[in-house]
């Protein structure tokens, strides 16, 4: 199988490194697996014989690779020319119009390429359209990395809860707000101080409003509602309150009654992101930058997944999606 990586930022680079480290494992599912193309903002690499994985794992921009570099070439050109069977879309998230990821995914699907993405933007903006496009073109669109990073969410529901009806999903969907609220809970610091520390540690988005005003969590609620609950919702349908107004007094008042305050995304008859009181013995009571998702279903009743929702751990979800496609293709060959 021939794979291309669209976007060579944090996820793209870490994916290249991980594929280099795990290539023997990947080849157990597909002996012919190779990365044939990678694009970033400066251009793209394309080598039909397969790029050198060791070299790819060391470079910080595609232009550093020297050979097979098409300077100024676009990602769309790479998709068109590559003859790839899998495209990993890993350009930066844009929740206003989903671009450029949206166009990349559409082009790949209509060109007969299966798509794996960790980019929330296109799914937030056009989930139903993309799902229909994948179906019409008989292609796979996998997006495990878009919600709660490394945590199995969609795979869990698709593979392990096939007979269950999901009644409610609630959870901590943003690690930065969990870090801030955990700091406030354990150290009694103010919101402003905790946010400053999060920024110093580099765990906030460039614009912290994306985290603290609940926008990032709301994007994930949109994807979960559409993908798992089969709803048809957009970002503006989510009732959203962030954590800017949470005071240390409120945190300590909650603490005295054995509650913690967490920013919780909820999907049931309501679609909401808001600070909530979580009992200290509830499975969603996890701290630091951890994410947690709690499923309520008719058969399994209650099920909670906890893990890291951002960072290079997300590569785990992307790689799992790639291997799932390889296994399916091997099975149907």
């Amino acid at each position, binding site marked *: 199988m021939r794979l291309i990586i669209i976007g060579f930022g944090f996820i793209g680079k870490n994916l290249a490194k991980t594929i280099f480290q795990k290539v023997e494992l990947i080849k157990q599912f597909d002996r012919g697996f190779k990365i044939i193309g990678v694009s970033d903002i400066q251009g793209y690499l394309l080598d039909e014989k397969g790029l050198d994985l060791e070299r790819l794992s060391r470079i910080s921009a595609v232009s550093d690779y020297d050979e097979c570099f098409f300077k100024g070439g676009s990602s769309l050109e790479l998709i068109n020319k590559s003859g790839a069977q899998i495209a990993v879309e890993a350009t930066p998230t844009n929740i206003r119009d989903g671009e450029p990821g949206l166009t990349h995914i559409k082009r790949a699907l209509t060109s007969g390429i299966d798509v794996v993405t960790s980019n929330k933007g296109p799914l937030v903006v056009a989930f139903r359209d993309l799902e229909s496009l994948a179906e019409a073109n008989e292609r796979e669109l996998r997006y495990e990395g878009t919600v709660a990073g490394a945590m199995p969410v969609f795979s869990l529901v698709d593979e392990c809860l096939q007979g269950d009806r999901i009644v409610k999903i609630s959870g901590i969907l943003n690690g930065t707000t969990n870090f801030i609220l955990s700091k406030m809970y354990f150290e009694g610091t103010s919101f402003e101080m905790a946010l400053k520390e999060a920024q110093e540690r580099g765990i906030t988005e460039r614009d912290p409003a994306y985290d603290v005003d609940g926008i990032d969590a709301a994007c994930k609620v949109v994807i979960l509602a559409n993908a798992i609950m089969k709803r048809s919702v957009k970002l503006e349908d989510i009732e959203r309150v962030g954590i800017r107004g949470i*005071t240390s007094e409120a945190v300590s008042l909650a603490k005295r009654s054995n509650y913690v305050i967490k920013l919780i995304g909820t999907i049931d008859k309501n679609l909401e992101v808001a600070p909530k009181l979580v009992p200290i013995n509830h499975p969603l009571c996890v701290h630091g930058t951890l994410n947690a998702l709690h499923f309520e279903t008719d058969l399994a009743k209650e099920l909670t997944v906890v893990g890291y929702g951002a960072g290079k751990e997300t590569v785990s979800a992307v790689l799992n999606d790639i291997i799932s496609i390889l296994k399916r293709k091997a099975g149907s060959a």
Partner: protein
Amino acid sequence: MRLDLTLALVDRPGQLVKALEPIAKNGGNIISIIHEREKTAGMYVPVSLVVDFPAYENFWKAREDLEKIDVNVVKSEEVIERANITAILIGKFDLKRILETKIKGLRIIDFEVSAPTSKEACIKLNLEIPMESADEAMRELKRISREENAILVSSI
């Protein structure tokens, strides 16, 4: 609907079985029975039952049928399941606004105020509400907190 009933049965063998038949016939599902022999009054023994009826009409029909066999219903009371809502409100907030809502059966169980004089005053509330009104109560709390420019932090 769930009803808490007390029947006055004549203290003779077979009376309880006789009394249960009109209840079952009218769709009553018996949840519990307590035969309160220690509270015998003259020739009568009180029997407490919790029964689910499909509708109030079913209970009335059962009651009529019980009277026809000389069993009196001496007490009937609807059992209302209640929900507890715990919430923290951040910002200046007038508690009277909650008490003035038209939500039937809403009660403030307790509250705790922190830093009442600061701009960041917050109050923790424990409310009790009939289960069927819990969603409405949450909507009202959200509406009031929006109008008061306060942040509502409710329990999950």
